[in-house]
């Protein structure tokens, strides 16, 4: 367990956390404002990645593909909202789960039909390739730093947007008590659409960012969806701040857990036992964290006010 490995893994964890935040931010807003469980949010992340790969193939430029993939993700999110989700806000959670599960099945398979089942790849742009030295003999890829930087920038922008614009104020009010906001004369449908489109775009942005470093394949959204749910439940539903803290926490714990649990178990277990238990414990770590948080604080770390 060397220091340099620890540092690298810490940055990897941070990067995962940032991506999780991008996905979870939209999810927690949709959840908090509309009381709507959107299982299909992970698919939007997947679609962001696919849009970006396709646009890259058409335009040949990474930055153009990023710029075009964002509105494409947003439009697709809005399309889904208008066609399906809008009719589900008043339904109970069970029906929302069922309908959005149907959307997942459809889109995962649809992606397979359109783009094929084989994973797609996308090169890292030249401007962001290479690596920077952190300390002696330790280098870290520029692109991963770019992800962290872009994610933090988005987080800051989102924070400013939510805390100091009028729409942001309505979003916060909606997360606290949507019915009251509606009763005060705010066009809640439009607010819902804005929040939804925004959430879809953020998820799509996360997908765009990972396209060059992960393989883009059907079902890639499912795993991150579950992680994002863990994040928003730990952070407290409806809370952006909670989502950020929890996302970084989950990202770092998951990544560090995967690389160091086995070694740490070796300190007090036989090597073979450590090898057997380590990976399982590492995969379970974040779920354990979530169970503990919920057992101690049933509404998450930063519960949005006014909710039980």
């Amino acid at each position, binding site marked *: 367990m060397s220091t340099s490995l620890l540092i690298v893994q810490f940055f990897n964890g941070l990067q995962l956390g940032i991506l999780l935040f991008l996905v979870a931010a939209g999810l927690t807003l949709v959840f908090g404002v509309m009381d709507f469980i959107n299982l299909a949010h992970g698919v939007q992340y997947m679609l962001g990645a696919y849009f970006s790969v396709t646009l890259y193939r058409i335009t040949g430029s990474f930055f153009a593909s990023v710029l075009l993939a964002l509105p494409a993700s947003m439009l697709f999110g809005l399309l889904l909202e208008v066609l399906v989700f809008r009719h589900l806000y008043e339904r109970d959670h*069970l029906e929302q789960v069922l309908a959005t599960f*149907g959307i997942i099945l459809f889109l995962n398979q649809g992606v397979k039909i359109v783009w094929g089942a084989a994973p797609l790849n996308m090169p890292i742009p030249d401007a962001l390739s290479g690596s920077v030295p952190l300390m002696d003999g330790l280098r870290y890829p520029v692109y991963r730093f770019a992800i962290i930087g872009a994610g933090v920038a988005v987080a800051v922008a989102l924070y400013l947007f939510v805390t100091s614009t009028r729409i942001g104020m309505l979003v916060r009010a909606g997360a606290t008590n949507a019915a009251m906001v509606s009763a005060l004369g705010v066009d809640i449908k439009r607010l819902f659409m804005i929040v939804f489109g925004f959430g879809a775009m953020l998820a799509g942005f996360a997908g765009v960012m990972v396209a060059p470093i992960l393989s883009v394949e059907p079902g890639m959204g499912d795993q991150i969806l579950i992680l994002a749910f863990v994040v928003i439940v730990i952070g407290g*539903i409806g809370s952006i701040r909670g989502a950020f803290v929890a996302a970084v926490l989950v990202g770092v714990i998951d990544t560090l857990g995967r690389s160091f649990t086995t070694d740490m178990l070796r300190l007090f277990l036989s090597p073979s036992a450590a090898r057997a238990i380590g990976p399982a414990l590492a995969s379970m770590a974040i779920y354990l964290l979530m169970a503990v948080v919920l057992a101690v604080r049933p509404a998450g770390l930063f519960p949005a006010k006014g909710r039980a």
Partner: protein
Amino acid sequence: MATARSIRDAAATALRTLTFDQRMAAGLFALMALPPLLSSVLGGSYLILVGERVMIFAIAALSLELLVGVSGLVSFGHAAFLGVGAYGAGIVASHGLGTLAIALPAALGAAALFALTTGAIAVRTRGVYFIMITLAFGQMAFFVATSLAPYGGDDGLTWPTRTLVLGTRILKSETAFFYTALALLIGTYVLVDRLIGSRFGRVLRGLTDNEMRMQAMGFTPYPYRLAAYVIAGTLCGLAGFLLGNQAEFVSPAYMHWQRSGELIIMVLLGGTGTLYGPILGTLSFLMLEETLSRLTEHWKVILGPLLVLVVLFAKGGIAGAIRAWQGGSMTPAQLIALQALVARQGMHAAAHLWCRSRMELRQRSGTLAASSQRVAGEVAARWKTYKVVGGRLVVRVLAGMALAVDRWRRR
């Protein structure tokens, strides 16, 4: 002749004493008993294998209904119990202990223990948090299974053979296994049906309807919900035991979260609030899967939108549609009562009653005035739609409540 008639009469009397739900379930069980007979005529064991799957998942769906429909606990990690049950029996079988006397208790015990430990934490939460925490526990079970290196890990565990009954390989016979599964399904149905009718079941339903009131009456929710969770988990463990037996194999895929989602679909497609619904839902879902996957490899493209349509247009699933259809038209007295209510108290009050019957007001009690007005508007706006889309049920409920109100006022 006389005996034939008396038997028929006895059967008719017995049928009359059954509730609608029990009659529907009996019909389904009779339908499910057919595959071995059919395949002895047609040959091949395809129908038997499909039938076994349907019955096994129907047991799982019934156990989930005990949580979702009766206790108001939407478990999104229910498939974990399938896996835990199958692993429990599979692991003892791999040590040469695959007899019924050991493997079945191992499966049920493992599932019950898992339910007790996870339920102790999960049942403390409600609503969305319960959905998420059960999902988390399901994922944990999944990852534990993938790392069970001595028992196959990712690749799964192949059972040495099906469970031995009194030292014989009787379950190896597909027909015997089939009818065992059917008997267990019927047993599960009877058990859950009895449970719902019992004091325990009434308390559970009361807690779902109005928790605060039940607490005021002196009931503590926690032990009841935990007990329901453990019972449901154990029953699903039984389904897992059968599933492992059928395939003579168990793998972490049994516990995948999508499997949990499918179990929810089976329950909802059939219709919660009934017991024949989940069975019918399982049958429909697996048949749909079977048919569509023969049609095209991209069958999920068809299934997905179908689910959305079911949610949007068929509230209450298949059972809900049957109920609405069976409801038929209103009696004149009911229609008059309804019209009287609407005339006297306006659409607003009618809507008020309507949504109270659906317990929507409770959920929105925070802004009671605003919401009831909004719901009233909604009802008025959608009145036509409800009339067309199986809304007879709504009207019936409304009329029934109107009659009740009138009666109460006259006292």
